[in-house]
């Protein structure tokens, strides 16, 4: 109110008009900020990528809800899961994010107004909250619950600003009730924010015994989580005073970033700023409140415009800096690749793979899948550098397997090996039991396996996700009418390919052999087998299986096959099935050139490397000379 008084005490007669103009300007700027940030969220951040990365799973079951009620912050977590499931719809998700962050901004503005009078900083306060609140979403592992928890903290601070009184005892009791609520609903860091903000409010108002109150408040906020840990909630000590909790697998868990701490401490920071500003104004304000000489309405307007302009510049600057430090283009491209692979948009996978630039094993794996599903794996095997050798075909043996178990499940489902697809699906389901993606996969596998009862069980679980009712209804028909599964081309194909007899899945080679033994028509398995033999430089396996290529109606050998065969024949005898037309003249010519380049460098591998990379970088011969020797070290 002091600030408002000081403006009023400026004796500007038509200040009401002006202030309404400024308020309009203020509101207009706020609306523009919301629109800009909505555009950023919808078209740059894209909430559907959050949905995809985190496999957000909400469930309407009562048991699911009860699971959130036994620990502090559970309610926020439940609310956040409910809301963030709509991130699967990009625009709706953008609206939810912007609305939630705007709610924080508006509460911050409202608090500032209540505590310090109508402030010319409203636009800045609102925008800075909005910018921070949006920019944390640049990290696609960011848990939405952190924003929801913070919103609850804001709401409780706001409530406190209404109910706090001059009577210190009442004040303290009300505060304790609110702090307990904050803690239970939104967890310990939200409580700290609530405590800091309310302490600052007490300092600003200086009610009776304010010093005792503030000390008590800080003390309670500091020890409440610890006491609850000691005596009430069997929580892990690692979760104390942290915003987000690390859950397995650690490699894809969100790690609290300093930007998030800044975002969390914005409200106390804003209140401190306003207290300082108030103190400064009180000291610099001329006594009697008269306008300084020469202060004309025009000058006043100019000053205000300048003031707003500087706020806009500052917000833009903050936004730019936050954008720069939080954007991660590579990760975003990887997520796009993953997203398109999940949705089997293989051309898009290749398009984004090209944009990633540096080598990445996951990209390697998905590019191989994309080529294989487009029927181009054998032709373009070396278009992407196979730096991990066969590890780029089968990531089961790499460090990625734990974090990308769902991708492995998808991969084996493509190949038709249901046992491995199921194994990796269950690994994923263990980490994220209600993930719609994994539940759909489990339903599909059990339909392939003709285990309708189990398929129905997972349909029952998925049915509790409001976004997948249509999918559930479609496949529930298969349970009632089993013939529908036979008519489904994907299920029917996987049924034909899936091996049924018992054997141990020791390694990818045996798995592929098993698939080919189960059904020779499995061309995908055949191509993978030859690619595996090529990347492992296993000539005998390669030749043994290559001779069946005509079975797959292949007229001319794809590049990787003829390059391998060419080299094999150069070192060994010609296999029986090879005729004069098996290897193209172009390939033979290329091989001759390759050898002549080597000779030009006196067969010195290192010296010839650059020259060969330029013209033969995507050939088996180059792979064999320069990449294969290192693949074992890479894995």
């Amino acid at each position, binding site marked *: 109110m002091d600030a408002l008084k000081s403006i009023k005490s400026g004796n500007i007669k038509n200040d009401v008009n002006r202030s309404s103009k400024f308020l309009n300007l203020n509101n207009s700027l706020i609306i523009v900020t919301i629109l800009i940030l909505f555009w950023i969220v919808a078209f740059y951040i894209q909430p559907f990528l959050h949905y995809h990365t985190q496999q957000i799973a909400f469930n309407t*079951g009562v048991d699911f809800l009860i699971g959130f009620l036994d*620990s502090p912050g559970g309610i926020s977590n439940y609310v956040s899961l409910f809301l963030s499931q709509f991130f699967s719809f990009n625009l709706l998700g953008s609206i939810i994010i912007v609305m939630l962050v705007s709610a924080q901004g508006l509460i911050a503005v409202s608090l500032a107004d209540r505590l310090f009078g109508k402030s010319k900083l409203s636009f800045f306060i609102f925008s800075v909250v909005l910018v921070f609140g949006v920019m944390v979403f640049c990290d696609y592992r960011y848990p939405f619950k952190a924003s929801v928890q913070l919103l609850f903290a804001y709401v409780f601070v706001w409530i406190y600003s209404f109910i706090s009184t001059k009577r210190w005892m009442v004040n303290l009791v009300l505060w304790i009730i609110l702090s307990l609520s904050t803690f239970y609903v939104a967890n310990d860091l939200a409580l700290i924010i609530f405590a800091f903000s309310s302490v600052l409010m007490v300092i600003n108002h200086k009610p009776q015994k304010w010093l005792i109150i503030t000390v008590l408040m800080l003390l309670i906020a500091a020890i409440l989580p610890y006491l609850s840990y*000691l*005596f009430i909630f*069997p*929580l*892990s*000590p*690692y979760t104390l005073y942290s915003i987000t909790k690390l*859950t*397995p*697998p650690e490699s894809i868990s969100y790690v609290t970033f300093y930007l998030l701490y800044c975002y969390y401490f914005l409200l106390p920071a804003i209140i401190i700023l306003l207290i300082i500003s108030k103190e400064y104004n009180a000291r610099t304000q001329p006594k009697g409140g008269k306008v300084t000489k020469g202060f004309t309405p025009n000058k006043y307007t100019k000053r205000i415009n300048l003031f707003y302009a500087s706020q806009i510049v500052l917000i833009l600057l903050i936004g730019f800096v936050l954008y720069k430090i939080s954007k991660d283009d590579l990760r975003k491209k990887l997520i796009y690749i993953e997203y398109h692979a999940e949705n089997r948009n293989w051309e898009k996978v290749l398009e984004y793979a090209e944009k990633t630039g540096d080598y990445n094993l996951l990209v390697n794996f998905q590019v191989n899948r994309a080529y294989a599903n487009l029927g181009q794996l054998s032709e373009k095997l070396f278009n992407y550098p196979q730096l991990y050798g066969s590890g780029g075909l089968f990531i089961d043996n790499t460090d990625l397997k*734990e974090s990308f*178990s769902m991708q492995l499940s998808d991969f084996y489902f493509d190949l038709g*090996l249901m*046992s*491995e697809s*199921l*194994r990796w699906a*269950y*690994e*994923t*389901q*263990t*980490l*994220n*039991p209600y993930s719609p993606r994994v539940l759909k996969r489990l339903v599909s596998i059990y339909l392939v396996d003709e*285990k309708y*009862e*189990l398929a*129905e*069980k*997972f349909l*029952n*679980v998925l049915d*509790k996700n409001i976004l997948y009712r249509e999918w559930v209804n479609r496949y529930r028909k298969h349970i009632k009418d089993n013939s529908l599964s036979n008519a489904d081309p994907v299920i029917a194909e996987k049924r034909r390919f899936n*091996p*049924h*007899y*018992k*054997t*141990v*899945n*020791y390694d990818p080679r045996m798995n592929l052999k*098993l698939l080919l033994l189960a059904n020779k028509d499995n061309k995908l398995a055949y191509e993978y087998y030859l690619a595996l033999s090529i990347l492992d430089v296993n000539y005998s396996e390669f030749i043994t299986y290559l001779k069946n290529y005509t079975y797959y109606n292949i007229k001319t050998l794809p590049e990787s096959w003829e390059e391998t065969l060419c080299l094999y024949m150069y070192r060994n005898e010609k296999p029986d099935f090879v005729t004069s037309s098996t290897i193209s003249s172009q390939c033979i010519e290329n091989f001759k050139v390759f050898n002549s380049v080597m000779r030009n460098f006196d067969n010195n591998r290192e010296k010839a490397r650059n020259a060969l990379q330029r013209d033969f970088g995507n050939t088996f011969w180059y792979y064999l000379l320069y990449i294969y020797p290192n693949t074992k070290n890479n894995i």
Partner: protein
Amino acid sequence: MISKNVMRKYTEIILLFLVSFFISCNTEIKDYTEIARIPSIFPDYTNILIPPNIAPLNFKINEPGSKYVARIYISDNESIVVNSNDPNIKINNKAWHKLLDKGKGKRYQIEIFVKSDKGTWQKFKTIVNKIADKKIDSHLAYRLINTGYVQWNDLGIYQRNLENFDEKPILENKSIGYGCINCHSFANNNPEKMMIHIRKNHGGTIISKDNGKLQKVNTNTPYTLNAGAYPSWHPNGKHIAYSVNNIGQYFCTGETRIEVTDSYSDLIVYDVENNQVITSPKVSTKDRENLPIWSPDGKFIYFIKARPENPNNKIDVKYDLMRIGFDVNTNSWGNVDTLLLSRQIRKSISFPKISPDGKFLMFCASDNGYFTIHHPQTDLNILEIKSGKIKRLNINSPETDSYHSFSSTGNWFVFSSKRMDGLFTRPYFSYLYENGVASKPFVLPQEDPAFYESFIKNYNIPELITGEVPYSQIEIRDKILEDPIPAKIHESVDTTFLKRHLQAIRN
């Protein structure tokens, strides 16, 4: 103050409710057609014997209809009537227990009426079950886990009050940073004498001592293969026999999706009060000794044994049933006896458990290995110890019927079965008659009859206990967060031999 009008309105509503309840409880359906078969209900609670203290066996009627009435009675005067607009029949807990109290040793019957879509009532053939005289232990402890094999996330050990539907966590791993917790075990079904293993984060074993306090120990010593894994409490509650194992997993195509097999395993006895490990060359051989279990008199350790691992065929191994004497007063080992060879029954023997009266030894028999839960062909068998007679229990199903545990009296036992869907493990209860015949098993009752249709966790290691575990989760957590006390090797143990033994198997 509430006005009189409002009070009157509330009173009217309550009276109306009571009248309608009274009417509904006494609904007599006179016009109906009789169906000459029992109705299809889920879970299958037909033709079973139940303990007199079990929670209401709520069920779902899998018959099409618009209204359902179930009359559960032991006589005309002692009945419960449940009316429902959906197929779920939920029985009042208090009324149910009153009925069971009066019906001990008697039959109880369920009459089911279903109103068809055409509006006519159908009465199915009456379901006849029986109430046993003997109670079952009041609680069941189990681990709830997802189906993953390598990774884990949320998991916990829980205790369910079998007399109602209360389930409480004994320990959830989220309180210890998501470490793996497993192999809970109790001495003589006593909830006060408990043991839990923790792996990875804060690894160790939590054991309750005689003074009622928990301690955390590391049972691994420089002379033993590993920390204790599969446990069995001595009846005195002061010793635990463990196997120490090197465990591996292999994923498969076909019905058995995973094989768990040990490259090596030995036996140890852990002295709880003195924190000492005792072992012997007799149970630390090149062969694989595993899954020890004490005889009820505490004089013998029964265990299973297989030949050393064949590197070319790690899976196809069969275990025999063995026994060795052990004197807890002198810590001395007796001689090893072979009780049952796998080739005698052409099956691998696993999870031997002896009834508290020492009369029967129940075990799992499967085609290979000892980790039976993934083998659909696993069945429960019973060996009459005195006569040596073996028989396959009459309660087995085409799916896995595996891990079992006796109640403190030995009348009841619980076992893990996948019979419901072939995938998820559920606890089933059965009564063991004196002649070694078991009653038709029934699944753990749930408040929601449709619970098992969408519950996607497994009940792992069901153990019957006589009451609630007295330790709070916070107490257990705090103990787990402490550093484990390393166990010492007992002075009588031949450490020179053990060093050589370890060296030999590790090479």
